[in-house]
């Protein structure tokens, strides 16, 4: 039996990541990348909606309720996705870690005995495979690019790496495959696997960094000011 908290964790990872991805719209380095990042964010938002709707059936709440009317302590996303990502290298490093994990997770969930979750995973696994490809392409190009792009890509990877561990909370069996995939990309990018201590995140238990509150304030403001607003 799947727990609502588990589904909320996956849903909130996708929702918060989608919100961060949306920040890039109109700010990406060029039009093509602007669309790519928006597409990725929309894929994640679609996953979040399916997962929130499913969690909602267990909690007797709607997806909008869950997205817009919970406070930060009720969110179950990992710290990796909630911190600001206003640097392109950081965005790609984070997407590499996040999508490599999502890819293994959803691939495993496809055969879940929970038919709803298996269905959601079946659709999502193709989407995140593309996200992983997109992030890999950029990490490789920036890592194996100029001296400047190499050092900035390494700095971005170093900054995101401590947050990788939290993803494996409750599912350590995914770690070898996820790490193998990431390290393959890191090697091709001529970057070094960071040797930094993991951060002990508490996202799955509702403990968050200060950044999530600001993100939710922006994301939830409209719905809370005008309950039931539609367009």
């Amino acid at each position, binding site marked *: 039996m799947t727990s609502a908290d588990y589904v909320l964790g996956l849903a909130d990872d996708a929702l918060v990541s989608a919100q961060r991805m949306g920040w890039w719209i109109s700010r990406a*380095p*060029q*039009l*093509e*990348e602007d*669309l*790519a990042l928006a*597409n990725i964010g929309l894929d994640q938002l679609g996953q979040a909606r399916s997962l929130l709707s499913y969690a909602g059936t267990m909690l007797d709440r709607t997806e909008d309720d869950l997205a817009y009317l919970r406070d930060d302590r009720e969110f179950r996303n990992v710290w990796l996705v909630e911190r600001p990502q206003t640097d392109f290298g950081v965005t790609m490093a984070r997407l590499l870690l996040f999508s490599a994990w999502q890819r293994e997770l959803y691939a495993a969930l496809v055969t879940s005995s929970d038919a709803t979750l298996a269905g959601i995973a079946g659709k999502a696994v193709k989407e995140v495979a593309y996200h992983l*490809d*997109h992030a890999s*392409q950029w990490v490789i*190009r920036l890592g194996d690019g100029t001296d400047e792009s190499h050092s900035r890509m390494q700095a971005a990877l170093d900054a995101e790496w401590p947050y990788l561990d939290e993803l494996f909370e409750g599912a350590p069996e995914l770690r070898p495959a996820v790490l193998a995939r990431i390290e393959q990309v890191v090697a091709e990018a001529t970057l070094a696997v960071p040797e930094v201590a993991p951060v002990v995140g508490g996202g799955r238990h509702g403990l968050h960094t200060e950044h999530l509150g600001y993100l939710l304030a922006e994301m939830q403001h409209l719905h809370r000011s005008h309950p039931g607003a539609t367009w």
Partner: protein
Amino acid sequence: MRDWPLWEVFVRSRRGLSHVHVGSLHAPDAEMALRNARDVYTRRQEGVSIWVLPSAEIVASDPGERDAFFEPAADKVYRHPTFYDVPEGVEHL
């Protein structure tokens, strides 16, 4: 990034049809051009196959020589297959 070359994008909307030119985009290399094309031109299920090629590789006819290139065909009506009757019942012609 401002130096990125231009690429022409061709999309096949479904099996059996030809690739059709849909537009152009900027990308640092062929692999990224293909991915950018996927993101820019097939977001609404427009295609099942994409070709990209460097715009610089296209050899185009000169608009200034349009008359010499195309005008001579204008009065050669006999090149159109309109001078014979098609027998009734012929389907595959």
